[in-house]
């Protein structure tokens, strides 16, 4: 056992405390470095840009509903109903797209050996999670201030759990995407388009429970629909979402993360050699 962190162990043995100490330092430096690169001084509008697209979608859909003289199928506020659908879905879309960055093509060439790929990935993931949570807080806070009392969740813990569950799916999908993108470059172009179709299959502007049973049965295979329902249940105490389960969201998320990490570990040398 090493007497102090960082000491060279006799005989070149491997010490977990030294490793952990170095790993934390490495993670911390990677986190702040990445934060500086993506959302800091070098990209002034970075944080704002993270929330601009979902906000735009919410406003456009709300305008569309107003022009068609229609009201959203649940709740008193159309903005709240659309917001509770758009933000979890965009949490998934943006996470699955942005997680490609830390594992990107040739990324290892510009990193120090100490910056292990998994740590770069986790620091990016944490950073993205924090950013997006701020974006969500700003949107629902603004909605509350503007007079929509229901914008404060009925069950805040459930809201946090739901958004984290959705984030887990996005994180796992992001790792898989990163590897697929390096193996098949066309995937990098296809995925942003594919991911946005999730908007239409995840209950953004409809309530899944009101759909015909057969349609609903197939749509519920999409874990994002369960994620959206889960998030809405935090805002609407009687939201009809008995058909979808939080466990399914977590299970899919964990499965994707596991598959992604295994894929990354097993293709690392191959991809680096290929590139």
């Amino acid at each position: 056992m090493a007497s102090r962190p960082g000491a060279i162990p006799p005989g070149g043995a491997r010490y977990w405390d030294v490793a952990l100490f170095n790993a934390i330092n490495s993670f911390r430096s990677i986190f702040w470095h990445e934060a500086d690169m993506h959302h800091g001084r070098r990209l002034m509008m970075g944080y704002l840009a993270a929330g601009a697209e979902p906000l735009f979608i919410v406003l456009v859909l709300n305008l569309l509903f107003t022009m068609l003289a229609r009201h959203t199928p649940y709740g008193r506020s159309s903005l709240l109903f659309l917001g509770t659908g758009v933000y979890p879905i965009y949490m998934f879309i943006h996470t699955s797209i942005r997680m490609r960055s830390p594992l990107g093509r040739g990324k290892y060439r510009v990193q120090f050996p100490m910056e292990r790929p998994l740590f770069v990935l986790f620091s990016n993931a944490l950073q993205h999670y924090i950013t997006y949570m701020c974006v969500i807080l700003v949107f629902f806070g603004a909605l509350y201030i503007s007079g929509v009392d229901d914008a404060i969740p009925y069950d805040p813990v459930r809201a946090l759990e739901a958004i984290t569950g959705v984030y887990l799916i996005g994180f796992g999908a992001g790792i898989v995407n990163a590897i697929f993108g390096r193996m098949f470059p066309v995937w990098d172009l296809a995925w942003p388009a594919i991911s946005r179709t999730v908007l239409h299959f995840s209950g953004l502007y409809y309530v899944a429970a009101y759909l015909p049973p057969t349609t609903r049965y197939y749509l519920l295979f999409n874990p994002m629909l369960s994620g959206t329902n889960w998030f809405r249940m935090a805002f609407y105490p009687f939201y009809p979402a008995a058909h979808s389960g939080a466990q399914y969201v977590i299970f899919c998320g964990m499965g994707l993360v596991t598959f992604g990490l295994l894929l990354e570990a097993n293709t690392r040398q191959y991809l680096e050699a290929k590139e």
Partner: protein
Amino acid sequence: MAKDYWGRGTGFLTPRDPDGDAPAAERLSTEPTARDAKPKRSTFTLPRLPQALSRQKGAVALDELKVTARPKADAPGYFDARDARQPAFPELVRTVDFGRKVWFAVSFVAPLVIGGIYLFLIAPDEYVTEMRFSVRVPISAHAANNSAGAGSFDVVYGGNGPPTTDPLDNFTVTDYISSAQAARDLDAKVNLRAMFNKPSDPLSKLGEHPTAERLGKYWRKMVYANFDPATGLAVVRVNAYSAADSFAIASSLLSLSADVVNSIDTQSQQDSVRYAQGQYDRAVARVAGLRAELESFRLKSNVVNPERAEVSEDLQIVDQADHLRSQDLAQLDMLKKQLGNPQAPQILVLQKQIDGLTKQIAAARASGGALPGEPRMAITVGRFEDLTTKLNQAVSVQSSALQALSEEKTAAQAQRLYLATYVHPSKPEAPLAPQRWLDMLLILVSAAMVWVIGRMIGNSIMEHD
């Protein structure tokens, strides 16, 4: 003695003495040792490569390699590595390997073993009773509610339209079923606490002396109630630790649900009747008040009805008397001027006639009439008309209120809602939960995922030493 680059014994190529003095082969032949009695197949570990080499990417950690060899003591060049007096490595701590083993045991093996023991040896069987129903509105009520339009199914249902579900009341019933209130009601009816305390498994049982909150939380775990707005149907599943209990709970729950529907129905009907009764009572009181006011006015004005014929005749008499008196007064004035004697017999007769007419008019006025053109008569007639109009309106309102009350009472006698149970609870014959193999599979997959993710993170951390 042959030594390698780092000054350690190379081991397996050159036989050597443990002390470095005599050849090993020679010692083997003269000094039988304990190892000669050991099994022929033995295992020994290859010497380590230096750390710098073993850390190269793709290098195999030689300290982990195990080589199996069949020792041949008489073979030339035979060497047993245990004879080598290599420098000891007391500071060598295989923390990584140990950690990996611990992580594997904790994250993968332990959940599987614990889960398997619990599921197959401890977890009690659960019997599931299912029932399906819908809160319906009868045909007649539906027809009354939707008299404006006829649907496509109206022909099938005799022009009344199909009986429909009431989504709000369906939601109410399913929400009630999964509520703590339902648990309390059931507990009072079938002793839910005793039923849920039957298993010996402390993780499954409700627990001794549970609070109402604990009972409600536990109940939500044991019941599933859902209303499907798309089909208008509700499904309820009740779990219990015996088939009889499951059936008893489900049957009681169905009865309680019907009570809830009836109470919703009764309450709304009672509200409607109460409201109609209130309207009618107010109308009756208004009519009575106006009638009393009119009676009082009649007594005060001595006029029964100013529009009636007798009153008109009285008024005509007064009018004629007044007219005659005017003529007499004019004649009296003329006679006084002509005769110049106020005591003339004609004047006295005329004066008496005028006095008589004046008394007659005064009497008529005192009896409630009024002289034509006097404002009092107009006021009397106006006031009378006002009271009469108000009374007529109040009577009309009273009549409407009476009709509404009658209709509400009739509606109250008919059932507006009813619980249509199309899948009745039936006593289960075999337990349906827990699904042990499926649960084991989920534990296996989940544990594997946790193990892999932890292992990946651990590897990344250990790459920083």
